[in-house]
């Protein structure tokens, strides 16, 4: 359940973001996350820990929107992009080359925050 620790990191970042708006108080409607398929994060567990963590905090009611980012590799021989998969040992379908370059799929990113400001 390292998603608990990931949620703690996320809350630290959100607290810092809140301070940037001080003295106004942002009311957060939604936090947009991008989570790559080639990470050790299970989005459902993240959503669960988020709901528990924000209860009775300034983020109570804020939704976490997780956008899954597919794993895309690029074959370094022929430059074609492809979807590496465990059952093909992540090799490129064009040249059977190992997964050398990852284009997307390693994202663990707080993309943006939707909010309103209370003065």
């Amino acid at each position, binding site marked *: 359940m390292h998603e608990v620790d990931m949620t703690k990191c996320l809350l630290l970042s959100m607290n810092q973001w809140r301070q940037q708006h001080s003295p106004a108080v942002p009311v957060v409607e939604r936090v947009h996350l991008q989570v790559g398929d080639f990470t050790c994060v299970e989005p459902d567990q993240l959503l669960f820990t988020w709901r528990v963590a924000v209860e009775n905090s300034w983020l109570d009611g804020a939704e976490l929107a997780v956008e899954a980012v597919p794993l895309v590799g690029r074959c370094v021989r022929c430059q074609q992009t492809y979807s590496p998969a465990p059952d093909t040992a992540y090799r490129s379908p064009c040249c059977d080359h190992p997964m050398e370059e990852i284009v997307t799929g*390693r994202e*663990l990113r707080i993309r943006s925050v939707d909010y309103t400001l209370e003065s």
Partner: protein
Amino acid sequence: MHMPLEDTLGLNLLAANHHQAEHNREHFDAWQVLCLNVMSSPGAGKTSLLEQTLTALSADLAMAVLEGDMTTQLDADRLEAVGVPVVPITTGRACHLDASMVSGGLKLLQQRLDPASLDLLWVENVGNLVCPAEFEVGEHLKVALLSVTEGDDKPLKYPVMFREADCVLITKTDLLPYLPVDIARIEAHIRQVNPHCTVLRVSATNGEGLAAWHSWIRQQVSSQLASLRNPHGHNVVPQLVNA
């Protein structure tokens, strides 16, 4: 009326951990100490390999260990017996070390010795092939162990760990005659997810491959020292993922 607003952050989810890890690394660099983060599943042989390695290298390298363990000090006691300073970090229920736990361990270490007198600091992570792969602790390099008894599919099942590793050690090779396992397949699967890492076959029991492992360590200690003296060649500062 409140206008709906949107802020674009483009900040890594683990930014708080990354900042602390970067802070730890700044300390290591100031002390001119190489930090290696050793990771594997439970029972792959991290502690046995470290016992052997500390014994073999302590004559010419000054070393210390931050020993991560969920609840016990058993591993720390084993390594302390070798005569190298060990700081145990019990993580409680957490299945990995994070940068702030290592920072706490460093403060305890500083009560015992001057870290600038060290050449090499080992971080033995909690046995787990999943979580430690995502939590940097400030290490310069990651070492992953995979024992031959775990099967050749593990690099494909836990690809992030093996992708992130700078060096992968295939351990317990002394057991190969008794197992229906093809070590070439293990190596091939590691190469599939990480074509450029160093892969070594080792046995802490019969000594196979340990000379190559020790020479890899010595090489990393000297290149770390060289890169600190030539900051332009220094490429180990962590990169945050930005939008």
